[in-house]
């Protein structure tokens, strides 16, 4: 009998508002992975950090007429994924402008540590 132990998957979300068609996929994949009992962490980095801004998450759509990005983020969270965002040195963040679904603002060093520890790392 094959044992199917839980795997940890780190998804680096580097896509942002300049490429809306690419923005929903990381969260949908995270939902499916979490539904298969993987431990999933989504890490917003680079332009992807913009997706944590509430005004962006509520308005950005991967396809015209589709659900806003926040819908996909909430699905991923509901399935059990963690959502982290890269702390950007020198950039002042007003927590009130960020989505409530964000679990943590994290450092680059913590990201490096996760890359070394996780079984799978995807960049989307």
């Amino acid at each position, binding site marked *: *009998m*094959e*044992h*199917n132990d839980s795997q940890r998957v780190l998804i680096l979300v580097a896509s942002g508002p300049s490429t809306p068609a690419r923005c929903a996929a990381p969260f*949908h994949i995270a*939902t*499916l992975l*979490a*539904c*298969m*009992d993987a431990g999933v962490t989504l890490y917003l980095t680079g332009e992807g950090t913009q997706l944590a801004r509430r005004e962006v998450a509520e308005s950005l759509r991967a396809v015209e007429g589709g*659900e806003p990005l926040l*819908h996909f983020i909430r*699905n991923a969270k*509901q*399935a059990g994924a963690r959502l982290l965002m890269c702390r950007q040195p020198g950039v002042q963040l007003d927590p009130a402008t960020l989505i409530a679904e964000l679990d943590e603002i994290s450092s680059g060093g913590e990201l490096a540590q996760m890359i070394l520890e996780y079984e799978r790392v995807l960049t989307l």
Partner: protein
Amino acid sequence: MNVHGLEFPDSLRYAPEHSLWLREEADGSLTIGLTAYGCALYGQIFAFTPKRVGARIERERSFGVVEFAKAASSARSPLAGELLAVNEALLERPALINQDCYGDGWMVRLRPEDWGAVREEFPLGKAAEAAIAERMRLDNFDPANAHVQALRWK
């Protein structure tokens, strides 16, 4: 048995918390599928992706993923066991689950661990009615919604 307009065959066992039915096979395995209530909750199913045959499924862990209109959900197993078979037909035609959830739309076959010890946790037919009705009540289930009507019209 009929609960709020939805059919639940008397010959099957049920896991009401998971909206699943279980059928005991002669070889000791269990065939598992989504109940009509599960279909009503999900609506039109776009995909069912099971875990690989041979996988050991722990109790309350996923045996697959169900994708529907606006989201996806884990299909959690109400008991531990080994995945013996998956319904390959669903890969091409996932809508079979909606169309014939107690027949061609079965999902997986499992060899249960210690079935004798857990068997009575899954009431047979009419004995499951109260638990299914309670589940519906807790979910604020609306028998008038469109998905339920579609199931009634089949």
